[in-house]
């Protein structure tokens, strides 16, 4: 009977922990002390449908264990992005011409198609370094810094955290803070809020003809993460993270516009550029987002071993003061295949509500809202990912793996954002993408 009571108690505790548990940013794949460097490398190809964004990237993560849980971690990523990206304008029955972000040329979207800006290309380099070490009995501290650079964006970040073990190291609590200082330097300058897209100015002139708000803007992001992880038994471990993020500064996408439409037909209002000048054939206003955003999130992850098969289940809830609430559900099941391989299918589902200032377009003649964006990433959205990973251990203890994933995203403009005859003719820039990654893990 006493035994039964204990079991019931344990079951209740598991259930309670299931509601809320814990997380520690421990350097994974614990390197053997004194064994030198533990290196993860990856090549990634990410490609979207219909000639949209493509990203080829290489990454490396190296962890050096100096013994006594003192660890240095270095990582580097190099991305090359090409392809076309939606500019925020709506599709029309007529071809549409736009001025490119540089302000030096124009591009034309065929009738019936979602306008894409094909001048989208970028190279990104990101470097991060962090150090972790014990601080006192049961405590460890970590600190890191990061840097990334793109043609039009720079990021500088600092982070620090403290972790404490409890309960014979079955429970871990952690608290981390990160601060990011970013600079946005849009090609063609920073457009003024709701400035109309200007005419092309030719190859010799500088900048975009639209209203300018300088050549660069700042953005600051403060992130706080409180985590708990809990060993539930010999075969399972749970973590729960609470996260808080406060962004301030320039949070607008400098390349996205909104289409000004006829309030009755919902079709773009037409415009004729001055004689001898190339320019937009409609009225397109640069978007304007609030200059602050506060987000809170709850993330839960469970790892459960079933005789050598490992199930990983994750759920994330996020809410912010822009009105975007999201739920993410994710699952992976890793099972051994052959002598030294494993197969890991993966499923992910994501859903979000639209930002309160999301607009499909703007009505001509109506007063401008305080904020507006037609970025589909701020609309109602559902997305799912299906993938599989295969990994193989070499006799030397190294591991190579390959994973292939398929991602599909469907956005929806909330009905109240539609104007005139738009209901029924709405086209959103939905897309699918393929993620292909090869990885190699080795020791140096």
């Amino acid at each position: 009977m006493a035994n039964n009571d204990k079991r019931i108690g344990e079951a209740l505790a598991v259930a309670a922990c299931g509601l809320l548990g814990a997380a520690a940013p421990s350097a994974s794949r614990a390197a053997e002390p004194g064994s030198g460097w533990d290196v993860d490398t990856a090549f990634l190809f990410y490609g979207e449908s219909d000639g949209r964004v493509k990203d080829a990237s290489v990454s490396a993560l190296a962890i050096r264990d100096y013994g006594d849980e003192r660890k240095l971690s270095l990582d580097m990523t190099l991305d090359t992005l090409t392809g076309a990206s939606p500019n925020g304008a709506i599709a029309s029955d007529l071809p549409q011409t736009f001025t490119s972000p540089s302000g030096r040329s124009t591009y034309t979207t065929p009738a019936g198609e979602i306008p894409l800006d094909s001048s989208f290309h970028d190279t990104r380099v990101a470097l991060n370094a962090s150090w972790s070490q014990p601080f006192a009995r049961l405590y460890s501290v970590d600190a890191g810094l990061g840097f990334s650079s793109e043609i039009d964006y720079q990021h500088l970040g600092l982070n620090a955290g403290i972790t404490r073990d409890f309960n014979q190291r079955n429970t871990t609590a952690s608290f981390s803070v990160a601060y990011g200082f970013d600079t946005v330097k849009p090609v063609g300058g920073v457009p003024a809020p709701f400035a109309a897209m200007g005419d092309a100015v030719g190859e010799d002139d500088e900048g975009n003809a639209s209203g300018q708000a300088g050549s660069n803007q700042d953005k600051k992001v403060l992130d706080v993460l409180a985590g708990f992880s809990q060993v539930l038994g010999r075969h399972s471990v749970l973590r729960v993270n609470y996260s808080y993020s406060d962004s301030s500064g320039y949070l607008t996408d400098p390349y996205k516009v909104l289409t000004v439409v006829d309030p009755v037909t919902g079709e773009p209002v037409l415009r004729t550029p001055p004689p001898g000048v190339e320019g937009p054939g409609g009225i397109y206003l640069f978007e304007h987002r609030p200059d602050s955003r506060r987000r809170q999130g709850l993330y839960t992850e469970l790892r459960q071993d079933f005789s050598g098969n490992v199930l990983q289940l994750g759920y994330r809830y996020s809410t912010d003061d822009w009105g975007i609430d999201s739920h993410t559900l994710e699952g992976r099941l890793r099972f051994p295949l052959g002598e030294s391989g494993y197969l890991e299918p993966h499923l992910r589902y994501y859903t979000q509500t639209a930002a309160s200032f999301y607009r499909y377009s703007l009505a001509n003649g109506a007063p401008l809202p305080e904020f507006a964006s037609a970025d589909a990433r701020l609309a109602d959205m559902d997305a799912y990912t299906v993938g599989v990973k295969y990994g193989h251990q070499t006799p030397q203890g190294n591991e190579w793996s390959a994973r292939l994933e398929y991602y599909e995203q469907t956005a929806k403009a909330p009905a109240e954002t539609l104007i005139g005859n738009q209901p029924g003719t709405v086209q959103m820039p939905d897309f699918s993408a393929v993620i292909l990654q090869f990885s190699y893990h080795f020791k140096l």
Partner: protein
Amino acid sequence: MTGKQALLILIAGSSLAGCANLGVKPWEREVLARDDMQLDAQPLDTAIDDHIYFSKEGTSGGRGFGGGGCGCN
């Protein structure tokens, strides 16, 4: 404090109290010590995924600080 927040704190508190009874002895960690049972077993995959979803969706983060530092959103 809203009722929602109070409930959250209550659940958090009771969960942590419940957790004190959980766990294993040091010699029972054979499975938990395996690479594939670590909460961050595949840090590079996680970082890559966070970065992709950060650029394509309206919310990001939660698992760690990954994904940020990019003009793609």
